[in-house]
């Protein structure tokens, strides 16, 4: 049964108002809460009982699957291994996300290890939001790992967002791109107080004409700290781009390390990175439109993390 806290967490991390249409798997406090499959999307518990296998039939179009995780049990650190097998020519959306509600001084955490096999010419859109809430002082930790393998002509668009309330995050994204494949990753992380977040990305452009674009947007408030590593490793004629921007507010700190490796003479790799406070010309412009200083700051951050 979903209580009010569960419903609120699900709404925040997976935009779910009640149970979604189509396939879903809701995990609460380390256990399956509810599951539904569809004609084209199967969900089963893996052999080890440590996670799920989501299998999407070839040719499945315009379907979605929700797989949110919610935690509210003091002291629990939940680790789950999920696999996604996306059939050829499918075009689907996967909505994941984890919400932690901490009501005590005991820590709570979740590590979602997700592995995607995206078939020939298949398209997947993956949306993941992380969020922490609750009046408890227990440390909230989220350590997701995402591994993605793109077959010929496959594409994946990944939107990874850490909204707020997560004390510690250590994210790892790994990808291997097949021929003519496309990977777009957009990561948005906002930290505050004494929170820390580390994001490590390793994208291997393995085959000819593969393309990857990694965008990272970070906002550090209070005394929080974020570290961003991204490597584009080109092993064929390919195109890769990293764009990482960080806005420092208050006394936040940031380390950003984009890295490009061209192991093929026809590789085209670029990156752009910036760290700094909100530009004064942006604030002045919005104030000249009638916004107050605080409204202008909020609007710029909101757009930056949109």
């Amino acid at each position, binding site marked *: 049964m979903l209580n009010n806290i569960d419903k609120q967490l699900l709404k925040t991390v997976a935009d779910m108002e009640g149970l979604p249409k189509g396939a879903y798997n809701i995990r609460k406090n380390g256990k399956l809460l509810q599951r539904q499959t569809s004609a084209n999307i199967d969900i089963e518990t893996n052999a080890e009982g440590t996670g799920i296998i989501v299998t999407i039939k070839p040719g499945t179009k315009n379907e979605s699957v929700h797989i949110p995780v919610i935690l509210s049990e003091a002291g629990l650190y939940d680790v789950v291994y999920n696999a996604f097998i996306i059939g050829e020519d499918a075009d689907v959306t996967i909505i994941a996300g984890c919400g932690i509600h901490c009501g005590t001084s005991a820590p709570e955490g979740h590590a979602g290890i997700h592995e995607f096999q995206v078939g020939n010419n298949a398209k997947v859109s993956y949306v993941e939001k992380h969020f922490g809430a609750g009046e408890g002082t227990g440390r909230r930790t989220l350590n997701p790992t995402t591994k993605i393998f793109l077959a010929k002509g496959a594409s994946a668009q990944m939107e990874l967002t850490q909204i707020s309330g997560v004390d510690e995050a250590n994210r790892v994204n790994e990808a291997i791109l097949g021929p003519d494949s496309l990977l777009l990753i957009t990561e948005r992380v906002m930290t505050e107080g004494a929170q820390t977040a580390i994001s490590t990305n390793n994208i291997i452009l393995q085959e000819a004409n593969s393309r990857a674009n990694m965008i990272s*947007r970070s906002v550090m408030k209070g005394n929080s700290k974020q570290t961003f590593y991204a490597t584009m490793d080109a092993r064929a004629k390919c195109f890769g781009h990293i764009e990482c*921007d960080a806005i420092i507010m208050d006394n936040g700190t940031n380390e950003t390390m984009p890295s490009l490796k061209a192991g093929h003479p026809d590789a085209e790799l670029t990156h752009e990175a910036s760290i700094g406070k909100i*530009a004064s*010309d*942006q604030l*002045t*412009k*919005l*104030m*000249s*439109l*009638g*916004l*107050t*200083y605080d409204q202008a700051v909020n*609007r*710029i951050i*909101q*757009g*930056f*993390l*949109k």
Partner: protein
Amino acid sequence: MLELKNLYFTVPISDNGNSGERNIIDGINFTFEQGKFYTVTGPNGSGKTTLAKLIMGINPISRGAVYYEGRDISSLTITERAKAGIAYSFQQPARFKGITFRDLLTMATGIEDEKQLMDIIFHVGICPMSFLDKEVDAKLSGGEIKKIELALTIAANPKLAIYDEPDTGIDLWTIGPMVHLLKKEISRHPTTTIVVSHNRVFLEAADVVLIIDKGKIAFSGDLTDALPFLTDLNVCTYRDSCGGNPDAE
């Protein structure tokens, strides 16, 4: 409508270890009348943009006062001046990540309704409808962002509109319609319009030309009378060092 009273903007300077002050705006007195078109011109570094920024509150005034509709607005913030009906087009508009022309239009007008926003763009005429959902970021060309900047100012229906070099980056075919548009706004509202520009088209369009030189108003009047001053300023901008000697190197 807008009165500048003994206006100064002073910055500290340091020269060979000696510190002092320099007046970027040096005691300007001037009254702008409602519904008139003013073009402010003058050599580079003469203080034109600084003067415009003092009116908008972007730079703080050092001495003197700015009166707007009979009220001393010298201590008002940029936000308060915007809410009082003053709009400002920047010479180099800010670029944002994740903020679209639609977002800025909504901020400028308070309007979110799609049809009303389309009506505004249609009325302004200078930006295609396709601009609406464009991000106002580094991908826009210099001309595109200037068109957006101009449209935002007009869309706000200001009582006083200040345009700092609106023609920079704009193609030749747009400058004429741009002047026509500003004139139309004056006749509609009437908007008091101040344009900082070196462009002859704006000088010809002005009811009053103001020539700023070394932080002072060197001339104010119509273009015909301004031409000798402009010619003089164009010929020699090193008068201080050459002493007016035409043979000086």
